[in-house]
């Protein structure tokens, strides 16, 4: 479902930069991702907790969400749960430092498209996965 929405967007306006919403409470990681994504030609929006993220998702037309799990106020699992009942939700890649397999399975059950353990992957791998998604 989310995939479809993204392709429709692409058809409408091919010149527009893809907008990635980064949901991450750790400032150093947030800015790192922001810098890298921008240098790779993406537009970015940021949220530092789940609640803020939901507001942005409802109001903004972002094309993809990078979602952290452990966050104050509202965690990533809850965000995924709430996104399930929303319409035309952009695809979600979970980026977390929770390494347990059960967390990854739970996220995928909740509709996340992919799952990355941040400390274990090079940043470029995440960027390439995003680019692959928009091809």
């Amino acid at each position, binding site marked *: 479902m989310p995939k479809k929405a993204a392709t429709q967007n692409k058809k409408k306006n091919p010149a527009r930069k893809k907008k990635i919403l980064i949901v991450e409470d750790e400032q*150093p990681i947030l800015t*790192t991702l922001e810098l890298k994504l921008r240098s790779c030609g993406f537009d970015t929006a940021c949220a530092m907790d789940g609640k803020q993220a939901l507001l942005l998702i409802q109001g903004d037309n972002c094309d993809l969400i990078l979602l952290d799990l452990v966050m104050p106020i509202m965690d990533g699992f809850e965000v995924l749960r709430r996104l399930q009942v929303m319409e035309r939700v952009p695809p979600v890649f979970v980026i977390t*430092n*929770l*390494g*347990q397999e059960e967390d990854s399975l739970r996220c995928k059950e909740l509709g996340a498209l992919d799952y990355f353990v*941040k*400390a*274990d992957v090079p*940043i470029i791998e995440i960027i390439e996965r995003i680019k692959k998604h928009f091809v």
Partner: protein
Amino acid sequence: MRVSLLDGAIIALALIPLVLIASSLPTHFFGYAAIIYGIFLVCAFAIALLISKIIQIRAARQSIERQKDEFLSFASHQLRTPLTAMRWRAEMLLAGDAGRITNEQKKFVVEIETSTKRMAELVNQFLNVSRINLGTFEINPRPCDLRTIIDSIVRELKPIADRKKITLRIRSDAKIPSITCDPKIVRILVFNLVANALAYTKKGSITLVVSQAPRQLDISVSDTGVGIPIDQQQTVFTKLFRADNIKEMNPNGCGLGLYIVKQLIERVGGTISFTSQEGVGSVFSLHMPLKSIVQQNGSRAITPSSIT
């Protein structure tokens, strides 16, 4: 083991019939019968009490283990967070995201980048060892595609082999049988063996052979590496073991890989064996059951659904 007031009350209640019967039946015969009955009752209650205590203690221990495991998860999450920022920033510096850097600076950053990667691996390894020791290492057997797992490991390690000019070969029966095992464990097992072979081989080749025996699958990794000195072969699988002849060769090793492999292969009902000759090479072989069994470990409760 403390006996609570409630436990005491139960015993007292159990004694009541004994006292009543004994006092109401004056003849010797009934007296003896009542005493035997009483003794029987007391024993039965004592046993029941003991069992309930054991269950209570086990539950308490499990809850302590769960708490320890939660702490581990939390600690590793917290450790990984700053590591991520360090690793990604170093990668970005190398990619030129902050402008051009000199070759000399590049060398420094490469060192930072490799160290953060190593640190992340160490966090993972310590976490695995702690979970194995605590008995909280999750094992979920399911059909797993060995070919895909091997391919991804080879893809990951090929660059290191290429850099060292070591040939990395895979040989397998035409059809690799499907096995039922936790893919995450298969990955850890094979990855560790191939990574070890790579780390301790200076030149030559590494061959991964997959073959099917009647009721098991054999995965062996042979190398033309330094080998393990014969007097140290007994202790290869002990925690923190590092052979004398490799300490200089790979100062990054921490002696946990083979320990983890041995613990995990046994946990899924398999075995590991090896032959090695110093200066010639080593062959490590995993013998995995086609359907993995989950070994009960200590007080770890494994849900029936996870046992295939």
